[in-house]
């Protein structure tokens, strides 16, 4: 609207220092100062964060940021600059990356294992069976109990897993593995010499799970209780 009023020719070098220009100058200095303060704050924050990476004390840096922001609130342009500063920080992060990657071992979550145990106990009385002293009983008795366990385990496995064999050939038949076969899928044993293709006999056809469908748990569920104690009233 009033663009004309503030349209300043930058080529013009003022010969006299009027109040208007003094104001402009101080404004520029103030802006530069806040930017520098902010940059420092960010850098310090970043250094602290990398130092205390394990303690995840990101709250400190957040606090410093939040304390600086209110100062700048009236100046819309400066806030835009914060965004730029953050971009610079991101670039710095990427620069740090080439350091040797730490070896990450996948840690299995206990919940899924507990769930499976719970299912096996519920359907197949699995824990009851394993925890019992089989030496005290005759084979007939154990056999009877084994039927319960077998039928229940079959139900659990069929309902929650899709199983397929890794190799479809008959066990005992000769098979040839071309170069580049997946060593995780097929394990070589015995006289391992020479180069692929390898020819040998299939000892075990292998199993793989093609699909898994485990129950979901509600937030408050204690998976450690595999089977609740029962009290009949």
């Amino acid at each position, binding site marked *: 609207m009033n663009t004309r009023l503030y349209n300043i020719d930058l080529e013009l070098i003022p010969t006299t220092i009027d109040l208007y220009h003094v104001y402009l100058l101080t404004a520029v200095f103030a802006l530069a100062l806040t930017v520098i303060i902010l940059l420092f704050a960010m850098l310090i924050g970043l250094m602290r964060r990398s130092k205390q990476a394990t303690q995840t004390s990101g709250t400190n840096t957040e606090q410093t940021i939040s304390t600086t922001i209110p100062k700048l609130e009236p100046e819309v342009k400066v806030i835009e600059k914060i965004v730029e500063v953050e971009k610079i920080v991101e670039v710095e992060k990427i620069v740090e990356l080439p350091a040797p990657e730490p070896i990450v071992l996948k840690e299995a979550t206990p919940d899924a294992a507990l769930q499976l145990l719970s299912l096996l106990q519920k359907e197949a009385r699995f824990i009851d*069976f394993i925890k*019992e002293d089989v030496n005290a009983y005759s084979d007939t008795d154990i056999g009877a*109990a084994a039927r*319960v366990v077998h039928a229940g385990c079959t139900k659990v496995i069929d309902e929650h897993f899709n199983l397929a064999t890794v190799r479809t050939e008959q066990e005992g038949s000769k098979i040839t593995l071309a170069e580049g076969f997946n060593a995780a899928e097929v394990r070589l044993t015995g006289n391992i010499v020479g180069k692929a293709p390898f020819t040998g006999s299939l000892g075990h056809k292998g199993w793989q799970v093609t699909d898994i*469908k485990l*129950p979901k748990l*509600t937030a408050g569920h204690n998976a450690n209780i595999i089977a609740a104690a029962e009290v009949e009233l």
Partner: protein
Amino acid sequence: MSDEHNANEHDNNEPGIDQTGEPTNNGPHYSIGIDLGTTHCVLSYVDISDPDADEIVQEVLQIPQLTSPGVIEDKAQLPSFLYQAHEAEINEGETSLPWTAKPDYLVGEIARNLGTKTPIRLVASAKSWLCHAGVDCKSAILPNEAPEEVERVSPFQATSAYLEHLCCAWNKQHPEAPIADQDITLTVPASFDPAARELTAEAAQRAGLKNAILLEEPQAALYSWIEKSEGDWRNHADVGDIILVIDVGGGTTDLSLIAVTEEQGNLGLTRIAVGDHILLGGDNMDLALAYTLKAKLEKDGGKRLEGWQVQSLTHACRAAKETILSDDEADNIPIVVPSRGSSLIGGTLRTELSRDEVNTVLLQGFLPEVASSEQPVSSARSGLRTAGLPYAQDAGITRHLAGFLTRQLNAIDDLNDITLPENATFIHPTAVLFNGGVLKATRFADRLMDVINSWLNAEQAPNARLLTGLDLDLAVARGASYYGYVRKGKGVRIKGGTAASYYVGVESAMPAVPGMPPEVQALCIAPFGMEEGTKEELPNDEFGLIVGEPVRFRFFASKTRREDTVGARLDYWTDEELEELDEIEITLPEENHKTGEVIPVHLSAAVTEIGTLELLAISNQDDHSWKIEFDVRSGEE
């Protein structure tokens, strides 16, 4: 919605369908079929957004449900059970479902599981109660035998709860296509009476299914067979065929006859008869086996079995039965009842279920080789009947079948294409379609076919063919969702209308005889085979209704009197011809009228698009009409 296909404007030999007639963008995206079974609910769906698609892809919804406290699993079937848990039974937060933190009722697998150990809190077979005369289905009566302090629900509430669970499961998985906007087909037993149909439709309304219509289960099974054959069914059915659909579910047996006729050069299907509501199914068979083994164990061990042991036996018998009836090699199946404590090996009970026992108990008990002239045995019910379900007294399914076929001898009289031999004493089915999990067992299916064929052969008729290819567990839901597709004008539609004619009891104008109740005439208000969307009025029969006072009519149905027209009065009938249903009731509201005023009305009957029967009393003074209610069950007897 988004995947709207660009229809190339070929008229795909369905002249009745115009391309622009169906709004694909705003109309329903799916046709959903819900099998609201006595023991399980299944939801199947078909994408109908593309009016030109000739191939349909059917899917079955995976229904998330609690299986035990805190554990949620997806299953294709939702067991139709409801459990009223005690507050101390389950921890806070262990009953949450993907769509709610605290559901009103526990339904599905968890209800069934908890109920096996605490039967007093379990609501089962709510559906059978809906069709049970003599109880008010909207009053909280279930669980039937629970102690006072257990909060009860009505059969109607339980049914709504199952439907609501299905709706939530759907909406969670299809947020872009809310179930309220889709075409819904709900299946009901063919033998459901008008009141039970009305209750089912109302439960659907309450669960938010605005566009729900009803379909009879045996018809749904046939639709599923047609859909599965992918057009090939025309090579397996011919004009003149009478298809007998036998649906043996967990709790009920449902029978229907469907005739194949000719319609303008094409094959047409007409449902010509339905059987009685028989509370007899697979669960009875498992129980029968369990009690046989229980007797055996008690004789050998000398110790009485406890309730939970019988439960466990029943469970084991179900699996063993299926193995013996499907596998000719398996003669003896070991049955093990594990102990309840943590010691598994020491405390188990062992026994065996032999082929002979299965043959005696199941084949001879449930499918005896009887003559076609036999009738199901029913002794007069004792006066002191407890308020339980009216289970079938005769377990012989073949006897029920024989009775049904004999009773329906005249079912094809109105059809020109089909004639029976002169000597026929029962209607001769030429093809049989099985449905229901029980009939998965091949020996069972074979036995039923043998018995039916022996009846046919005795009257020199050829053997009936077995129509195969159904998925017996999911067929009803699949057929129901396919029906939604059929309703769009694709594929053949089974005609039929109402499977019974309906009558109200009116006092005949005779001089009163002291000490004798006045004679009752049956006035036909809805004829046999009334189609959906049609209406009949009886302007000549005027009744005076008193404003503000409930007026009750006796209400009758007949599955065999096809010839009665609207307004016909019967002075005499046999018990077999007319079956008395619950009374119907009308109360004229007092608005616009004075209490005590007598308003002359006449009756009208209509079959709604939903598939329910609607009875109205229409004022003869103006056009006012009042609905006559079915669902006021006479609970006070």
